């Protein structure tokens, strides 16, 4: 009988299995060591917006553990809101608070999407205003570098009007175009419009 350790096919299988097994074990350990929880990801997004960690409470979080708050807000014609957080300003005497939205706009270039974090400042007697927008991610967009700060600053206003990137002569909507990246700008406008629609309660 042949010595099994001299069979090439057996040696090949054993070597591959050994490499796969050791790699798998190592990755399992490292995955545990470098695990980033959904809460930590949210903290990171908040830190990007505020420059520091802030306490927040969840209104909607599709990645969260609370089943009651897992349902996203979907607007078929513009996009969806996957996360909404309430950020209390404990040091504010006027009882102002912020709402943070993770919103995704549809109908970008090649039907792709753009996901933004939108900070809305709310106060008791005034209309909510968009205060800051940060790009979270995008899909299929190729000219995102054209969507600079000046474009996002175009949304920093009262939330009574919707936005459009293509000039459709719609006076109901504020025109916020980007030359050469109209489809990407449309997806970004749709993402912001989702927030406005939610804030308006429509």
């Amino acid at each position, binding site marked *: 009988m042949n010595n099994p350790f001299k069979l*090439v096919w057996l040696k090949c299988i054993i*070597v591959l299995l050994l490499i796969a097994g050791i790699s798998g074990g*190592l*990755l399992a350990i490292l995955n545990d060591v*470098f695990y980033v929880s959904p809460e930590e990801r949210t903290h990171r997004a908040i830190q990007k917006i505020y420059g520091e960690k802030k306490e927040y409470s969840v209104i909607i979080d599709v990645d969260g553990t609370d089943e009651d708050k897992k349902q996203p807000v979907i607007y078929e014609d513009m996009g969806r809101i996957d996360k909404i957080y309430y950020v209390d300003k404990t040091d504010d005497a006027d009882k102002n608070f912020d709402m943070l939205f993770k919103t995704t706009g549809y109908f970008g270039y090649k039907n792709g999407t753009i996901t933004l974090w939108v900070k809305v400042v709310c106060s008791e007697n005034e209309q909510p205003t968009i205060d800051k927008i940060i790009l979270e991610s995008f899909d299929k967009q*190729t*000219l995102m570098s*054209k969507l600079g700060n000046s474009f996002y600053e175009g949304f920093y206003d009262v939330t009574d009007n919707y936005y459009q990137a293509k000039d459709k002569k719609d006076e109901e909507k504020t025109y916020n175009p980007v030359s050469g990246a109209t489809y990407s700008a449309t997806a970004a406008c749709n993402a912001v419009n989702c927030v406005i629609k939610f804030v308006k309660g429509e």
Partner: protein
Amino acid sequence: MKTDYKKIAVDGLITSNPTFKLVLGTCPTLALTTMAMNGIGMGLAVTFVLIFSNILISLLRKVIPNQVRIPAFVLIIATFVTIVRLLLDYAMPDLYDSLGLYLPLIVVNCIILARAESFASKHNVLASACDGLFTGLGFTVALTLMGAFREILGSGAIFGVKLWDFQIAFFSSSSGAFFTYAIFIAMFSLISGAVIDAKKRKAYGKINELKQENAVVFDNGGNE
């Protein structure tokens, strides 16, 4: 055989530069060089994978049967790419986000597989580590230079710091990436060609000096 580490370094950085000379790993080169920071990030990620996969492949080169060497190399490379992904997501989330899809695609980056197959599987651990380091640095420098060029012209900034409002949007686009790549390959060929010519001239000059000094008569078909 004595290993020539200087040659390994010069090969990785210049004479066999993976980006400008061998034209390998073009996918991340074209897609990620919109910003210099992306170039550095991608380059260092590839360097990490190159060094450690080369070390491990060199260590296991006598154990891995020839018939399954490619699947084994891919398994090893994939392991280190996953480690880089975990590390970046944990420690540098901004860079992790900006590299996006191209980070897992390092697994199929032909630079890494080429070095594993052509160098690490035939040389000792130290030489393989050096080869990984210098090939990776060559790739990093190339991506950073292209990223800086495109960022300055396409966004009017460098490493995210705004320089001026003047921008040529073409350089941020895909076609701008190809154009930039062509410019850099042409410049690299021109400069390296000039350096090689200068070295040849210098060598010929020395030979001529020796000829004159020693009055050496070369065999030239019996004419001299």
